[in-house]
């Protein structure tokens, strides 16, 4: 247990500053003393895997590890956690590499609605970490700190017993506690109380943008590699690569709001998918710009508490008379959007890049890209596809005419 250092009196209407390490990342929060650790984790850090049920220490939904021991996050004020190591369910495993407990809960169907699952995972992690030889008969008592209203507990106990058996010498540690920048909610959203800063946050220079956009290390949430055959020539593509404003107009749902200078841009990106509406405000930095290669780093925050960071590499190379556009992107998602199914988020992103390539093709051939500040919609995508087909037909015709 960490003994925190002393801190002077903070009045009830003043924010207090607290430093802690969450899933391996140092964070500094400024919040009123009465904010619980569970609220700080969810509302200020955007890590909504930790659930909140009763808020008075009965249900166990908010169970997290504090200095390696399970504790109720609703019975701790965040200010008390000064200097401590906190592990939440997000730190336990990765979507493509689950912790054995997560994997076992899935296999045994140890969840139904899933609300208690983060609590059970953290509680059973703590149990098996400290008592790897716990016997099956003691599991109901040992896991009584978390309530489940769906499963009748049987499958949960099976899941934990299975992992205990498979790991008699102790279970593996948390699998997703790397050096990873977290994107928190904007202060405006959390009513002026959530000034989130990570220690890894780059310094802001007088121009109002960070010196650089630091991408998290570790596995990205989505990795995209899309190659599109364009109808435009490499020279035409180079012209678009050279014009960031035009390039931005090719990106579905994107809008360039401000040119900061020095390769920095402010912008907005909107995504509309059925009832899903996301709107990211953020910064983009063109790190490399040449006729055939463009490297952009971007970070954005969704008003709902999600965040995205990405590194995008576009390269154009000749493919016959035309150009082939290759887009590679590493996208890191945090907060509520990270809850999107990995494959869905991947599909949507891939589709967006395909639309982007199509729009870029139009722009390269001198037309106005058929996407704009409107979020991508089925009609838009369809229209773009039809226009594309029509143009291709026209170009084929023209070629025939010139040949003939």
């Amino acid at each position, binding site marked *: 247990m960490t003994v925190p250092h002393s801190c*002077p*009196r903070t009045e009830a*209407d003043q924010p207090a500053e607290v430093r802690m390490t969450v899933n391996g990342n140092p964070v500094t929060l400024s919040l009123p003393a*009465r904010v619980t650790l569970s609220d700080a984790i969810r509302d200020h850090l955007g890590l909504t895997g930790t659930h909140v049920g009763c808020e008075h*220490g009965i249900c166990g939904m908010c*169970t997290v590890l504090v200095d390696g021991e399970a504790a109720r996050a609703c*019975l701790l004020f965040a200010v008390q956690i000064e200097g401590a190591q906190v592990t939440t369910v997000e730190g336990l495993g990765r979507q493509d590499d689950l912790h054995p407990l997560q994997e076992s809960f899935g296999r045994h169907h140890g969840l139904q609605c899933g609300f208690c699952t983060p609590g059970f995972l953290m509680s059973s992690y*703590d149990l098996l970490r400290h008592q790897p030889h716990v016997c099956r008969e003691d599991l109901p008592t040992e896991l009584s700190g978390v309530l489940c209203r769906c499963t009748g507990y049987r499958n949960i106990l099976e899941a934990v017993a299975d992992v205990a058996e498979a790991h008699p010498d102790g279970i593996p540690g948390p699998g997703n506690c790397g050096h990873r920048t977290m994107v928190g909610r904007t202060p405006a959203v959390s009513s002026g109380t959530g000034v989130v800063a990570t220690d890894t946050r780059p310094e802001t220079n007088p121009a109002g943008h960070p010196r650089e956009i630091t991408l998290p290390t570790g596995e990205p949430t989505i990795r995209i590699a899309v190659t599109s055959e364009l109808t435009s020539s490499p020279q035409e593509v180079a012209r678009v690569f050279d014009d960031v404003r035009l390039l931005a107009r090719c990106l579905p749902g994107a809008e360039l709001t401000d040119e900061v200078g020095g390769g920095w841009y402010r912008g907005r990106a909107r995504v509309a998918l059925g009832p899903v509406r996301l709107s990211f405000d953020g910064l983009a930095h063109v790190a490399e710009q040449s006729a055939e290669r463009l490297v952009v780093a971007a970070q954005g925050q969704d008003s709902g508490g999600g965040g995205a960071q990405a590194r995008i590499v576009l390269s154009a190379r000749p493919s016959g008379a035309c150009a082939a556009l290759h887009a590679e992107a590493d996208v890191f998602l945090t907060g509520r959007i990270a809850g999107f199914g990995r494959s869905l988020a991947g599909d949507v992103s891939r589709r967006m890049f395909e639309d982007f390539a199509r729009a870029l093709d139009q722009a390269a051939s001198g037309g106005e890209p058929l996407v704009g500040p409107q979020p991508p919609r089925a009609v838009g995508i369809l229209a773009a596809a039809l226009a594309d087909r029509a143009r291709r037909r026209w170009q084929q015709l023209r070629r025939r005419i010139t040949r003939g």
Partner: protein
Amino acid sequence: MKAAPFAYVRPGTVQDVVAELARDGAKVLAGGQSLVPVLAMRLGRPSTLVDINAVPELDRLSRDNGSIRVGATVRQRRLQRDDLSASVPLLRLALPWIGHREIRSRGTVCGSIAHADPAAELPAVASCLDATMLLTSTRGQRQIAAAEFFTGALTTVIEPDELLTEVLFPVAGPGEGFGFGEFARRHGDFALAGAAVRVRTTGDALQARVTCFGISDQPVTADVTAQLRAALAEVGPSPTGSQLRRGLAERADEVAADVVDTSGDGHASTAYRRRLVAGLLAREVSRAYLTSTSASEVSAS
């Protein structure tokens, strides 16, 4: 379920803590496992919380002069794991019953005693062993024996400006045996009734006392030496557990009738709590007696 706003301070020394406590409306925050629910439900709205977790000396767990000394911020789970608690077997028996692992990770031993919930385990353990509480304020320090410490539901002799800095639990002597049991509808709930027992058998001398909890506004301690002696006279000097339990049964009913003075609530009536206490008492006194006799054999050999 959010606490009302409060000022927060985390002093680094006991001196600074008690200076803060001398102000109006200040309340000690140690583990917070009892206090924070009270704040969340706004049953309490202290103007200042004085977090004592930055005081290194309060985090001490040590043994001296026949006692183990438990500092104000020592967590229940730490004491449960520490070898020192083996010298106070009643603590070892009682600690697993407190809440859940997740609660014991943060909940402190001293905090539970200072909070004095009538159904809590540690106040009963402190009463049964006649532990000593060390209170500190700007006015100085005082020691209070458990018998004088608890004064009612959630009430002790601690003044608003005082800090419970340490609790001293006497180390078990030769020929002492212990029993602890409680009944709750779910594990981790506050007990409907519970009993902590210490039996001392040294040579012909016999002493047995029981502290019951969850049955009055504070832990109630009774001397049950006469009842145990009578039961032993009936079943012989080396009874089995079940023989002794049967010998104690009727006498336990009488003790239970005496100690249970709650008027009952939605969870259990007075009569039901009496039956629980009687059952727990017969079982735990019997267990304590049998371990005390084997303990005296061990210490004699």
